[in-house]
């Protein structure tokens, strides 16, 4: 087995003269989870479709699971699996029939395909619904079936394109647990997501994608550290004291404080966390300023993203997947 599961260099893909990917690069060590994070239209899905042999590309070099995507696509297909944004299962067939079908199309024998289907139904808690039409499944069940279909032949690299979009929190946690188990067993996972907390939870390393290229790369902590200092936050009880408090914070921290009058919240970057907290608390008490909240905040990935791409974090989806079903 190679140590690097996915290598992409200088990847370029143009649609009708518009570059969807331009100099895209990626390096994912085997047995890790890489998160591709970026807003809609950043090129995440295009990148995954190219890596999964679904889409041709104009320039660059791509090696997935030890095989060259352009020259040996069939070999790549034997070693990967893809779970897309929608449940790619046949709604007219039952869950079991779906898994047997995909097993047969993976060239398993009839008996082996049935046995594997039963195993996966059990593993994904679908045995009770095995003979119902997949179209009658709930959103979470369909996604589980979809994931099960990707695991018929233990893939070396699994592509998950926004795997929890539109799932309720419980189903989302189930998908996350499954991904963690797969990685523990040695599968490499490339995950695209618009959800920062999903990338934070699952990914060993994150590549931030914007306008067709990777604009930053690192562990979630590294990316957060990249925007620098922690922040001290104060919420004052009385809006009249906002100006006093801002002056006080600036004096203690030696930096300009941001003020949000609507929430009566003030923020200031600090270097020495404990000293800043103690001094601020003392100064606030001495000045007789009542506070509702006082604390040190680490930067969030939202802020990291804003800093890295210059886009407002509003370009991203809300922090947590909404419940749709």
């Amino acid at each position: 087995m190679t140590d690097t599961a996915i290598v992409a260099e200088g990847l370029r893909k143009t649609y009708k003269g518009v570059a969807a990917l331009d100099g895209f690069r990626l390096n994912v060590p085997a047995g890790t989870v890489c998160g591709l994070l970026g807003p809609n239209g950043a090129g995440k899905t295009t990148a995954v479709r190219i890596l999964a042999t679904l889409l041709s590309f104009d320039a660059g070099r791509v090696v997935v699971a030890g095989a060259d995507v352009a020259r040996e696509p069939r070999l790549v297909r034997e070693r990967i699996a893809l779970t897309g944004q929608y449940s790619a299962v046949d709604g007219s067939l039952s869950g079991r029939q779906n898994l047997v079908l995909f097993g047969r199309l993976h060239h398993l024998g009839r008996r082996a395909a049935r046995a594997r289907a039963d195993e996966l139904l059990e593993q994904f808690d679908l045995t009770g619904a095995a003979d119902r039409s997949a179209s009658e499944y709930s959103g979470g069940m369909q996604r589980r079936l979809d994931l099960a279909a990707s695991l018929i032949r233990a893939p070396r690299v699994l592509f998950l394109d926004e795997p929890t979009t539109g799932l309720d929190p419980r189903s989302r946690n189930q998908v996350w647990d499954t991904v963690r188990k797969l990685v523990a067993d040695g599968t490499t996972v490339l995950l695209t997501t618009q959800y920062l907390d999903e990338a934070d939870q699952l990914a060993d390393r994150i590549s931030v994608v914007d306008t067709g290229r990777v604009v930053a790369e690192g562990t979630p902590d590294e990316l957060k550290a990249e925007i620098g200092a922690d922040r001290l936050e104060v919420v004052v009880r009385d809006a009249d004291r906002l100006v006093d408090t801002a002056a006080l914070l600036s004096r203690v921290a030696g930096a300009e404080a941001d003020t949000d009058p609507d929430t009566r919240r003030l923020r200031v970057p600090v270097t020495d966390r404990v000293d800043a907290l103690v001094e601020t608390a003392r100064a606030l008490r001495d000045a007789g300023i009542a506070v509702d909240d006082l604390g040190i905040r680490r930067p969030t990935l939202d802020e990291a993203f804003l800093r890295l791409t210059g886009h407002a974090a509003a370009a991203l989806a809300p922090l947590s997947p909404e419940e749709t079903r």
Partner: protein
Amino acid sequence: MTSALADGWTMTGRYLRHVVREPEQIILYFSLPIMFVLVFGYVFGSGMAVGGDSYREFLLPGVFVMTQLYGLGATATAISLDINRGVVDRFRSMPTARSALMVGRSAADLVRALIEMAVLLVCGLLVGWQANRGLAPALAAIGLILLLRLALTWVGMYLGSVVPNPDTVSLIVFPLAFPLTALSNVFVAPEQMPAWLGAISQWNPISATVAAARELFGNPGLGGDAWPAEHAVLLAVAWPVALIVIFAPLAVRRYRMLGR
């Protein structure tokens, strides 16, 4: 090559399972041709005559062919659904032969067409239709109808890969199929139409197969001495072959374009 055949066969099994799992669709599907037989055969049939012969015996071969034409809708919808729901993406990311989807669908459509023909033949015999020239010509007629179905399957697969939304497929198929049956010899003999309309009707690919089927079944309505009527069997082979030659490469090309 053998694995390509095996994959195609697996896919055939998949599409046939749809028939078994959704029998209500089949019942719905047969309601149209059976309604045509009853409404046209009994309501209008008493007021229409084709050279003194039974209108029902004239009508039935037309209904056989028309049913195959409407089968195109199911084909197009199935392919469009597969593409839009990402099922095709899954197939394409697997070591499955790329030909499997279309080969499988064609084979499944032929099996469906055989089942449909069996039901329609029994219906026909019940309302007094019969094949008057014996078994071999009757089988040849059925063979020509199935050949047209195969051609229409490729048209359907092309449509299904062009139309972006599965829901619009059925909206497109009816306005496409209806004029083809109305401007054909299915319900009215072309020589009873105005001359220019009759000419259009006679050269219609649907009419070719219907005329050939009438000839081979020994049913009335041979269509006079116009060239297309005299060479109905030839045209009933040529038209479907031409449709396959045009639409099979177009459908395959659309399928390949998914990767561009």
